[in-house]
């Protein structure tokens, strides 16, 4: 069945900013889909609000709109574009919901737009639990039974019917308050009484428990002729109870018999058909009882998902691309398998290796939030590793986490960390095995399948063999490497030096082989340039490439502070290096990204980003050199060791990196250039720090050296806080890693500058002016291009300083600077000798291909070749505002107050003809509701009151009513602003938090500082998160928000595609 002839123009919806549960896997899927449909000759219109993606590069689609993913913005785009169809299955839940809204409002019908990939009925059938259950019933599939109870008697009756243990979920309580699991009748009686009480509607959902059951997931595809294939089976290491996104997972499934597996496969097929999925990808999760084999369906998604990205990388089958082609009418047998070229896509990949994914968490970023894993996803990224066995692959995956070169490193076992799921459990299990705990025992405690535990036990047992060997023999070494041990791990176990282990290994010629991911377990010859290392095969000689090779180091797992922005730089530079005639080799460990798509680069090595693994890839591939400027801090930290091995670092030298990263040396340069820097000192103890503070005065900014994302960085206002800081972070402060104590430039304006420097040229990519004042991490502050408050002469001075500094550091490639401006003095805060988080935003805002220019700089192209004067970032006629999104909702105990430690997961971009339009779009795109009317609650710190007085007046004149806590209310009334006074939390009830929870408040402005006041006002911010009420915590944000509010009242805005980037 060939492609639909009537579909000539399609709209693809992206997934918006990166949030927990919806991350850069949708950049991967959207990019793949756009490319595939463009190749088909279709006109492709892409809409996404996230500028940090490859998919929003103007070349990816016919036209790219960076606009909020909200109906009011999408509708005018659809009216303008008049597409034949819309594909809602590639942009996660966001795109599905948006498509449903467009359908419900009649927009699609009115404009004659067809939904491809999934019709609204299908989306609803999978989403609506009751409908879904009816469908499951119709195909004879089972699912956890449940019932809503409203009384104690009802609860007892249902307990009889369902049997213990039971899960209690009180209705309408947030964060699962009052819920839990009851294992005994006694416990059930107690808990149900409490739960009924806790629920505002006195309703509790009592559900059959599947905790501890094995969990599986099938990634399937179906075409419109009804052909059904399973692309990948995934088995969770963690049993049911942990969100699959937070579970360690393995592909293919390992512990089911063919009989059990095929029966699950049959059921998946029936469900997909019954739900009505006509074409595309879907995933279905199952729970299987470990002994009885009874099977329940957990859920299904009728769309491309996070696990389909994982499945694509695990198998080499490009699910998103195929899904896009199926959506426009092709069938699986008509689409050739990309990898073998000769076989069709209607097959099921066969794997002759094992893939392990481990999620990466960020609990340390959210003090107060409990490191406990539940059915609510909390991880911010993931790593994947491929090995011939589970042992080889999980050890490689553990190394990919970048926790240190040992991988599954020793910890002090805590019973609690074993018994309940948490981000550290794997390490505690391994340690418990080291300590002699039995598999049986651990299985009882964790319910993890004994097979997995035995595998870990075999790893641990071999540690003893490694340490018992009198001399490290070739035999032991080879076996260790086959089990996935790193040289560093072997060294640590034997109390040797890592280099010495490597020397022994090299002497015995024990080197990794690079095996192909070929979708067919070697059955067919394939040319796919997608490799993983393993010590199970003998290294084969490498086939020579006609072009010179360049290796690009990726950025590893997404984490707060190092995310998709760095993948953008990597992918964009791969494309540039290829255009420049190089054979480009990508190394990365993150399965969610575009960079780990095997057709992004000439060759992909899916490997841990460790010194050992990179050194082996480099000595295998013999490139001209490697690039460490693109993947954020990870490659920057690896570069010195690789350079020491004799591999050539391309672009800026090690010395440049060190000059920028070493505080002392960098400050020296600034001083010599008469660039102001915040006064600072280095302290290894609180006494040292006090001395420093006595000369520079509070407030100060404290942080350990060499950090990304502002890890452990805090503004300290007094002695008590200083002491507390040193106490809390004592593990990270030492002689070797002293704490930096900087003067804190209160209320200063901050900017980011990105520039590229070639041998005799430079291009300023742009200056991003932060909306929030100094003190909020640059990744968490909103930003605007062009600057709105900076004086033109300051702007020029900043550019001058940037260029001089780049020259002095002898940058070849990228340089990112962070500066603060206070009383017209420009202070240098930090320099990063690499591409930065702000680069993709600037590329979209200015149309300057910064990454491409960086590549030309790294290659040493001259000014005459590059003609840098063509790129003038100020020559733009649009204003772009960067918005940010935060994951506070997922961390029940976390505070939403901003500070020097980064907490945001993603960004958005609002593009407008003027500042207010851009602001409006940025806020809307960042999921902030702009209330049209209602009550605004204010609780302001002393210093903000004066500043925000005009704002309060304006709000009243716009028709909002005001309420405030005592001090703020009195201040406002004294200035003739009408305002209702409300009690603070400690002043008795009903207080401000009760007010917020009552749903009466439409907007909260709460500025605060100082540890004590921050703690006291926590309830205000937390209730806003729980009830999804916009809560502004910085005065500058409040002023911007007002600007956006005013703009939204006019209700007038335009949508337009972004322009092409400037030709390079």
């Amino acid at each position, binding site marked *: 069945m060939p492609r639909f002839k009537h579909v000539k123009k399609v709209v693809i919806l992206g997934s918006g900013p990166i949030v927990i549960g919806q991350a850069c896997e949708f950049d991967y899927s959207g990019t793949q889909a756009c490319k595939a449909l463009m190749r088909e000759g279709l006109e492709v219109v892409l809409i996404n609000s996230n500028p940090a993606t490859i998919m929003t590069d103007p070349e990816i689609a016919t036209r790219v709109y960076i606009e909020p993913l909200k109906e009011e913005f999408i509708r005018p785009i659809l009216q303008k574009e008049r597409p034949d169809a819309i594909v809602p299955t590639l942009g996660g839940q966001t795109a599905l919901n948006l498509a449903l809204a467009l359908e419900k409002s009649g927009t699609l019908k009115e404009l004659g737009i067809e939904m491809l990939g999934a019709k609204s009925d299908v989306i609803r059938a999978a989403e609506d639990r009751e409908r879904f259950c009816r469908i499951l019933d119709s195909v004879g599939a089972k699912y956890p039974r449940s019932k809503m109870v409203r009384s104690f008697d009802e609860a007892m009756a249902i307990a009889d019917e369902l049997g213990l243990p039971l899960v209690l979920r009180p209705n309408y309580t947030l964060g699962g308050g009052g819920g839990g699991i009851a294992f005994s009748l006694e416990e059930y009686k107690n808990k149900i009484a409490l739960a009924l009480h806790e629920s505002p509607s006195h309703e509790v959902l009592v559900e059959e428990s599947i905790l501890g059951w094995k969990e599986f997931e099938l990634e399937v595809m179906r075409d419109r002729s009804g052909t059904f294939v399973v692309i990948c089976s995934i088995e969770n290491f963690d049993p049911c109870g942990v969100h699959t996104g937070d579970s360690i997972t393995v592909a293919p499934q390992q512990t089911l*018999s063919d009989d059990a597996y095929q029966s699950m496969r049959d059921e998946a097929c029936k469900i997909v058909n019954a739900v009505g999925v006509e074409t595309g990808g879907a995933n279905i999760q199952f729970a299987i009882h470990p002994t009885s084999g009874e099977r329940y369906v957990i859920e299904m998604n009728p769309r491309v998902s996070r696990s389909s990205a994982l499945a694509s990388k695990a198998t080499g089958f490009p699910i998103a691309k195929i899904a896009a082609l199926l959506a426009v009418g092709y069938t699986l047998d008509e689409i050739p398998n990309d990898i073998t070229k000769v076989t069709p896509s209607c*097959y*099921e*990949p*066969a794997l002759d290796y094992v893939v392990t994914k481990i999620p990466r968490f960020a609990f340390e970023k959210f003090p107060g939030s409990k490191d406990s894993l539940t059915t609510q996803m909390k991880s911010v990224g993931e790593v994947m590793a491929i090995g011939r*066995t589970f042992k080889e692959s999980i050890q490689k995956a553990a190394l990919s986490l970048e926790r240190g070169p040992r991988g599954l490193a020793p910890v002090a076992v805590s019973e609690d960390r074993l018994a309940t799921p948490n981000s550290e459990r794997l390490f505690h299990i391994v340690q418990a095995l080291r300590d002699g705990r039995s598999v049986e025992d651990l299985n009882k405690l964790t319910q993890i399948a004994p097979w997995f535990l035995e595998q870990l036990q075999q790893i641990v047992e071999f540690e003893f063999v490694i340490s018992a060997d009198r001399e490290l023999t070739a035999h032991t070494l080879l076996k260790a490497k086959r089990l996935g041990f790193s040289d560093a791990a072997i060294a640590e176990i034997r109390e040797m030096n890592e280099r010495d282990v490597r020397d022994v290994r090299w002497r015995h010629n024990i080197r990794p082989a690079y095996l192909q991911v070929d979708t067919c377990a070697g059955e067919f010859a394939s040319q796919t340039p997608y490799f993983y290392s393993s010590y199970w095969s003998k290294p084969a000689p490498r086939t020579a490439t006609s072009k010179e090779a360049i290796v690009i180091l990726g950025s590893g797992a997404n984490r707060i502070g190092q995310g998709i922005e760095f993948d953008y730089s990597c992918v964009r530079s791969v494309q540039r290096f290829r255009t420049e005639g190089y054979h480009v080799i990508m190394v990365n460990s993150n399965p969610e990204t575009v960079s780990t798509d095997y057709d992004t680069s000439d060759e992909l090595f899916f490997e841990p980003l460790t010194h050992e693994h990179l050194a082996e890839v480099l000595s295998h591939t013999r490139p001209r050199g490697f690039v460490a400027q693109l993947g954020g801090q990870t490659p920057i930290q690896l570069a010195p060791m690789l350079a020491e091995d004799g591999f050539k670092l391309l672009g800026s030298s090690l010395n440049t990196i060190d000059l920028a990263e070493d505080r002392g040396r960098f400050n020296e340069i600034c001083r010599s250039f008469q660039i102001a820097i915040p006064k600072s000192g280095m302290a290894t103890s609180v006494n040292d720090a006090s001395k420093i503070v006595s000369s520079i005065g509070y407030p100060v900014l404290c942080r350990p050296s060499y950090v990304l994302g502002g890890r452990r960085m805090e503004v300290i206002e007094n002695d008590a806080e200083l002491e507390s800081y040193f106490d809390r972070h004592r593990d990270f402060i030492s002689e070797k890693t002293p704490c930096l104590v900087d003067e804190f430039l209160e209320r200063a304006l901050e900017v980011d500058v990105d520039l590229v420097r070639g041998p005799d040229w430079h291009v300023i990519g742009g200056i991003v002016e932060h909306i929030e004042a100094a003190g909020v991490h640059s990744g968490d502050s909103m930003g605007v291009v062009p600057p709105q408050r900076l004086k033109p002469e300051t702007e020029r001075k900043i550019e001058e300083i940037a260029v001089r500094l780049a020259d002095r550091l002898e940058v070849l490639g990228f340089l990112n600077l962070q500066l603060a401006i206070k009383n017209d003095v420009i202070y240098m805060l930090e320099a990063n000798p690499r591409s930065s988080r702000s680069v993709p935003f600037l590329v979209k805002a200015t149309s300057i291909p910064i990454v491409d220019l960086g590549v030309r700089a790294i290659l040493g192209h001259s000014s005459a070749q590059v003609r840098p004067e063509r790129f003038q970032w100020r020559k733009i006629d649009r204003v772009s505002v960067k918005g940010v999104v935060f994951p506070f909702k997922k961390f029940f105990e976390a505070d939403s107050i901003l500070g020097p430690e980064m907490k945001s997961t993603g960004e958005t971009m609002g593009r407008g003809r003027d500042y207010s339009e851009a602001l409006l779009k940025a806020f809307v795109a960042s999921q902030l509701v702009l209330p049209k009317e209602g009550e605004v609650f204010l609780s302001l710190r002393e210093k903000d009151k004066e500043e925000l007085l005009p704002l309060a007046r304006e709000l009243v004149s716009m028709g909002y009513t005001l309420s405030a806590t005592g001090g703020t209310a009195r201040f406002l009334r004294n200035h003739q602003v009408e305002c209702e006074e409300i009690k603070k939390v400690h002043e008795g009830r009903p207080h401000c938090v009760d007010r917020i929870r009552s749903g009466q408040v439409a907007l909260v402005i709460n500025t605060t500082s100082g540890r004590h006041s921050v703690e006291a006002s926590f309830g205000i911010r937390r209730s806003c998160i729980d009830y999804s009420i916009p809560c502004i915590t910085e005065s500058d944000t409040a002023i911007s928000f007002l600007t956006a509010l005013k703009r939204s009242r006019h209700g007038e805005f335009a949508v337009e595609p972004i322009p092409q980037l400037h030709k390079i």
Partner: protein
Amino acid sequence: MNGYLVLEDGYTIHGEFHGGDAQVGEVVFNTSHSGYEEMATDPSYHSQILVLTATQQGNYGIADKFWESKNIWIRGFICLEIQNSARDSGWLHRLRNANVPVLSGVDTRSLVLHLRGAGTQWGAVVRADSEAAAQDEARRLIRTAKQERTSKATADWTKAVSRKKVEDRRGHKTTGPRVAVLDFGSKENILRELELRCREIRIYPSDTKADEILNWQPDGILLTNGPGDPADVRDGIETVKQLIAYNAGCKKERDKKFIFGICMGHQVLGLALGGRTYRLKFGHRGSNHPIRDRLLNRVYVTSQNHGYNVDIESLPTGVDVTHVNLNDQTVAGIYHREWRCLSVQFHPESHPGPHESSLLFDYFTEQGCHGSRSN
């Protein structure tokens, strides 16, 4: 214990030998992720050394219900790793008890790439201290085995695995047909699938004459899977020729006996129709082979296990190619409408593998057999 797999062409690969006697067989690889027990007990693997590309074997233990016959037929089990823990080493033990040599720790990918390039060949699994010693012993073993292989008396491998006596089974469907099964080495699941759909089943040894089968007056006849070179299955081919001749001679459509062949049954039918078979370079063995089924008008994934194929060019007129392997466009199913015979190269009974093509059993027992009765 050191062990080796040595191929006829001298390719030698090292592994850990887990016991059993040194053995010789045709070395073949299967890409299924699961189903080791089903494969090892499938009579089609008679005299073959099985290489599994999935790296960890034995993970989920053993169960009698997975057995596809009463014996383990393979002559060797080669994998990268085999489950062997205090809790469960069931599969390893079953193989050992059946005296099947098990070689683990083998870099199966390199081996498969070699087989893919050099083609299916004989090999021996031996225990030896050195590669040279292994090669010496293997050469000797292979030579002897090949001499045996070429002797007329044992050339037809189906005779080694087929039932020696007629066996009757009662089906679960009282309104279903009576089906005769010509056993070339039937997998148990073919019989289970028939039991679900038939009233009565009679299973005949592979050298049964056509008259005997016809005398039982079945509604349909199923030709099973089986091992070896189809061209050597002379008795079977002769019987099927007679059955076809019977159908061709029937005046009334309803007197014809619908014939349905699977794998070896398909090849035998192809030969009986006057076609030729040829040896595939390294066969098709796995659970992921796509088939275009023009009969049911579908595309689905099938379980496959065969080293020979029916040559499309050799088929006489009147034979439609109804099934095509989409990986290499080889013939995967034929249908002679007039003579009422249909056969497929793949395994609708799966075990291991996906179940979609079990629809062909419906076709056989409904349109096929019932068609014969009612027409």
